[in-house]
């Protein structure tokens, strides 16, 4: 085969800027590189010297799509450091807030970013021309998620109501009650979403993954749990850095994460579903069974169904939390500054998000470390592409290119988190 090049200057429908370079000779894939050239923003550096109370406001700015995840990992790390555990109604409120973010972020990806690939459209707006009722359902469902974040957090993007120890103000019963009607509608819409996504056409593509997610004895993981994997890893959050390492490769401004001695791993909805199926709400399990989605699910393209299952779970749980809401006596536990090191890991919509902070005795940040889910999935995205390209050599360039893009979008990569810009550049020689 003669040498060929396919180029896409900007991979669309992902959050951020990156590029892809695939180079192969004959039927051998020689090299796959997901190049991320999102400009670096140096959060870890400018957190130094800041008061711990400011951390949730600052780290929210890493990502406009999942700011709650950054705020949650941060407050858990800081509370751990200061020897405080947030329980009861305050903990429930945080879980409600996180449900809101899962719904808005997953629905954005399902309807606006991923589904157009399956349906053969350039965008959700193009889909809406032919299927307005589907896109309208997606938009309204996303809105229900955003309404939760706005009510508990103050606004959808970069919520202002989150601080170490709890909140600045606890919502009233009436404020949360106002969400219930829409959430009932949203739960039904989520059921429809599961059925609809399960009816899409999926490539026959399965791979052997090591899945990594949190696991909690009592609930589907969001804010707390141990870090477990499908290959038997089972560690406390503060052991994270003993088992995972980051390396800096020349083609990316995001750091690559690997499991020491084992290599790439997969985080996100597929990993959570496979490792925590038994903790899903009964209705979510029921729908998974109905649409024939069993564990383990090893087809990354089916992550779109898994996201829908998680939206259903989050709507169901949010509704329960809203209905059982007891106004916390105080908006937050007062925290005294102190020196030490704390670790936090929570389930961002895209997978585990690890934070570590070191504070001095005045409560000022000495050192911060943040490992976002997309940098953890980067290696696996490349592995998938290598395999996918090898299996689909016969496809014409434009179809192969689109398939590669779709495969990257299986991970809902947030490159602004991992740092943004995806450029697809396939070379055949």
């Amino acid at each position, binding site marked *: 085969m003669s040498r060929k090049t396919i180029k896409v200057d900007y991979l669309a429908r992902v959050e951020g800027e990156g590029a892809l370079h695939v180079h192969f000779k004959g039927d051998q894939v020689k090299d796959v590189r997901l190049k991320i050239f999102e*400009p*670096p923003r140096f959060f870890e550096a400018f957190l130094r010297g800041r008061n711990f109370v400011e951390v949730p406001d600052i780290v929210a700015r890493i990502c406009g799509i999942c700011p709650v995840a950054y705020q949650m990992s941060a407050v858990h790390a800081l509370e751990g450091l200061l020897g405080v555990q947030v329980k009861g109604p305050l903990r429930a409120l945080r879980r409600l807030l996180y449900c809101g973010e899962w719904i808005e972020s997953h629905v954005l990806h399902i309807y606006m970013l991923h589904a157009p690939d399956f349906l053969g459209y*350039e965008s959700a707006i193009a889909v809406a021309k032919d299927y307005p009722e589907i896109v309208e359902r997606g938009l309204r469902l996303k*809105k229900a998620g955003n309404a939760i974040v706005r009510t508990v957090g103050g606004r959808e993007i970069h919520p*202002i*109501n989150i601080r170490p120890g709890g909140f600045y103000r606890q919502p009233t019963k009436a404020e949360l009650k106002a969400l219930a009607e829409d959430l009932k509608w949203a739960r039904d819409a989520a059921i429809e979403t599961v059925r609809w996504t399960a009816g899409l056409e999926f490539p026959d593509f399965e791979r052997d993954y090591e899945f990594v997610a949190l696991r909690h004895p009592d609930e589907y993981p969001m804010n707390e749990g141990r870090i477990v994997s499908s290959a038997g890893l089972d560690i406390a959050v503060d052991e994270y850095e003993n088992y995972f390492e980051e390396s800096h490769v020349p083609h990316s401004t995001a750091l690559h994460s690997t499991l020491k001695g084992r290599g790439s791993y997969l985080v996100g909805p597929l990993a959570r579903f496979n490792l925590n199926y038994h903790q899903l709400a009964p209705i979510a399990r029921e729908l998974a069974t109905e649409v024939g989605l069993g564990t383990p699910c090893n087809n990354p393209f089916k992550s779109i169904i898994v996201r829908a299952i998680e939206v259903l779970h989050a709507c169901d749980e949010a509704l329960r939390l809203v209905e059982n809401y007891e106004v916390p006596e105080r908006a937050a536990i007062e925290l005294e500054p102190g020196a030490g090191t704390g670790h936090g890991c929570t389930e961002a919509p895209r997978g585990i998000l690890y934070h570590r902070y070191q504070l001095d005795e005045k409560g000022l940040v000495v050192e911060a470390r943040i490992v976002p889910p997309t940098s953890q999935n980067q290696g696996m995205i490349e592995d998938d592409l290598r395999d996918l390209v090898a299996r689909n050599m016969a496809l014409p360039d434009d179809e192969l290119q689109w398939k590669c893009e779709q495969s990257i979008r299986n991970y809902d990569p947030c490159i*602004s988190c991992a740092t943004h810009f995806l450029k697809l550049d396939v070379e055949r020689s």
Partner: protein
Amino acid sequence: MATHSKRPKLAVWKFASCDGCQLSLLDCEDELLAVSEAVEIAYFAEASRAMQKGPYDISLVEGSITTPHDAERIHQIRRSSRVLITIGACATAGGIQALRNFKNVKEFTRTVYAHPEYIDTLKTSTPISHHVKVDFELRGCPINKAQLLEVIEALLHGRKPNTPAHSVCMECKLAGTVCVMVAHGTPCLGPVTHAGCDALCPRYNRGCFGCYGPKESPNTHALAAEWQRLGAQLRTIRHAFRNFNAWAEEFRKESEKHEP
């Protein structure tokens, strides 16, 4: 892919940022489809694979300039845009990443990256207006999506956007929110911060922390003195002015007065 639509062509561009301000457009769940009828979304990479070539009637620009490549790219975008609007604190003031401007960026790169030699970055993060002519700046970290719709609608009708330039303090008064600084002694940036958020933080029992940047001619000096009277330390005052709009001139100058 040429089309012959008569609707104005809209493009959305990204520079160093968190994506939140362009997400605000997708967060207009009730209006998005109507917007896509009123304008032709010609370039919006986060939402569509279809990327039409310019010229564009309206360009929305998110993010700040932090790399040599981006410093070039913004000029190309300006050349292909009839109207260029910057959205959000990164694009209008350099964003939180402008905190590098106060420090040695080499030290920053070493803190985050094992191989700083792989990283191509400028010493500063600067607003779009430092590089090209900007027709309208929409403030906020993040922007207010209702204001974004107002700006687009105003452009379509050839009128001036109605986005109040008064302070957050004024928004509190208009909403009848009790003053957190007077009533509770909570330090608040409301008197010097540009309106746009509907005075959100005071409604959540906290002081404004300046997401929308300085209002026109803010008396930051008097406010800093009031903060001191309330017991705020030098560092607290410095950091209050050094967040998402740290490189906006009035906030930068005030923060520099509180260096140790």
